[in-house]
């Protein structure tokens, strides 16, 4: 190849400005987040909750399973029981800290699993199109015909309850929406010019999906999945509340709410505590996922 002679009528495009430090995509996201105080604060809350759950044995003042007939339903601040005791005399604070483990587990595991499974299904459906797409999406539509609470209760209810069944039920509930989001994103990306250009350069399908499609699909899927976490936590606790999730005596916020319900006339504030924990956790995940969504919007 001979050297291109750049004549005067071709401009060597030069900004004139000194070479500015080009920030990558993730760096831009991080930069935007740095000034979003609300998101940062609630992200900190999440970190604290997760840490508390992990370090439960170190933090909890009492054994969460140790019952006591004498100290049943004591109010907040009674002697050493910082948050009171439940109907079997167990320390509320310890049970709340340990309960975080269960609630986080039942919230995060189904969403992660559903993202992987549903996302894969959606990308396949979106990329292949045609009959495969119709088959997959129509099946997903059928599951969509059930309200999520109903579906979760139906599946775990008929399977007999218990934690494992609860996890399975929740995963099945979240696969359809994630599949749909992935399919919509993939279908949109598939028709864009740069994907056609990649096809025009003779790349095999797997390479195109990996290098061009996936990168642009992951963001919307990830954002949607993060917004589902708060729903998952609520739903999981709801299942436990109905007796379909975690089994006693394992501490779990939803289960605690249910067993304490009978005692609201005796110690109303203690009975409301597990629900407060669910609320704060769910709220934090919601706000953080909202903040992430705004920060990750590439167009701006």
């Amino acid at each position, binding site marked *: 190849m001979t050297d291109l002679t750049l004549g005067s009528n071709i401009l060597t495009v030069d900004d004139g400005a000194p070479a500015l430090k080009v920030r990558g995509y993730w760096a831009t996201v991080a930069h935007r987040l740095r000034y979003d105080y609300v998101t940062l604060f609630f992200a900190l809350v999440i970190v604290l909750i997760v840490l508390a759950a992990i370090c439960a044995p170190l933090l909890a003042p009492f054994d969460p399973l140790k019952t006591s007939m004498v100290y049943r339903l004591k109010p907040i601040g009674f002697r050493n029981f910082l948050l009171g005791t439940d109907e079997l005399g167990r320390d509320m604070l310890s049970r709340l800290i340990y309960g975080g483990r269960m609630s986080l587990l039942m919230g995060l595991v189904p969403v992660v699993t559903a993202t992987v499974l549903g996302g894969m299904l959606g990308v396949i459906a979106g990329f292949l199109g045609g009959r495969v797409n119709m088959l997959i999406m*129509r*099946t997903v*539509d*059928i*599951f969509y*015909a*059930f*309200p*999520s*609470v*109903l579906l979760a*209760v*139906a*599946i775990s*209810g*008929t*399977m*007999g*309850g218990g934690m494992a069944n609860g996890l399975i039920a929740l995963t099945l509930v979240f696969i359809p929406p994630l599949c749909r989001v992935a399919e919509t994103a993939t279908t949109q990306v598939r028709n864009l010019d740069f994907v056609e250009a990649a096809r025009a350069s003779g790349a095999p399908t797997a390479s195109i999906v990996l290098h061009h499609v996936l990168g642009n699909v992951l963001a919307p899927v990830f954002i949607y999945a993060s917004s589902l976490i*708060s729903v998952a936590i*609520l739903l999981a*606790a*709801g299942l436990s*509340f*109905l*007796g*379909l999730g975690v089994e006693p005596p394992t501490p779990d916020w939803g289960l605690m*709410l249910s067993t304490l*319900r009978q005692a*609201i*006339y005796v110690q*109303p*504030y203690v*009975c*409301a505590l*597990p*629900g*407060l924990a*669910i*609320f704060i956790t*769910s*709220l934090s995940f*919601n*706000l953080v996922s*909202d903040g992430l969504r705004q920060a990750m919007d590439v167009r701006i």
Partner: protein
Amino acid sequence: MWAYTARRILYAVPIAIGVTVICFGLVYLAPGDPVSMLLPPDASQADIEFLKKLYGFDQPIPVQYFKWLMRAASGDLGTSLQTSRPVLAEVSRALSNTVIISLGAVMLAFSLAFVLGTTAAYYVGRPIDRIVTGISVVGVSVPNYWLGIVLIIVFSVELGVLPATGMGSNGSDDFTLASWSQVKYAILPTITLSMVPLGIIMRSTRAAVAEVLAHDFVQTLRAKGLSELAVLRHAVRNALPQILAVMGLQFGYLVGGSILIETIFTWPGTGFLLSKAILTRDIPVLQGAILILALCFVATNLVVDLLQTAVDPRIKRA
């Protein structure tokens, strides 16, 4: 337009069939086989065989499905194992109770959410907007079963003005909205149920109205000298189809997903029926209730879809 309507209805049919398949298949998710649930554990093999034949469990599954489907289509959903009453009657009576609080909840949510959401959209970015957005996030994040308990604590335990549970001394057969002595039982469940729809409808309203307000034609209206109130009216009218669609969907969700609230307040709706059926493993009721609720949801979606297309011809999904 009618071709679209027909096509949309036609499209709902395979979905409904799929729903029936799932409902039918749910029974087989249960541990153990269906017959053993009907009999005491020490039943003899002969009894089991006899019952199997009686209920048709010895036949291949697709055949069982069809038979079940045919019976369901004619209104026979079996009889409750607990009360021995026909399932359809139980479920439909419970359904009417659920509809009472669901409808109330959605209307309450809508009226509040509509006003607040529109205000927030009009004053985008200002403090009122942030407050309203905050409320909607809270509404979506709050576990409504917990809220129910909190409300009970506040209004029944502490203040003692509203009853905590049940549907009133007259029972569900004779419920009217006319007398306070009966309506007061419905108040707390309705308020609790309305929390999540409040958050969602408020968010949708804000988004829809804000989007319309950003359109160019709004500037044209202002340039023509229209008062702000009139401009807002026009904008809201454009956003209304979307908002109403969300409202309809939320209603469908509440009817199908009211189990938690009804359990707390022991409100004898379909949700409560479901939770009782789960506890007592009353499979016919479980199956029948899920089937009816899911089909109601499909029907609600269909109606919302068609209404939306009728009002806003731009929206036409394949």
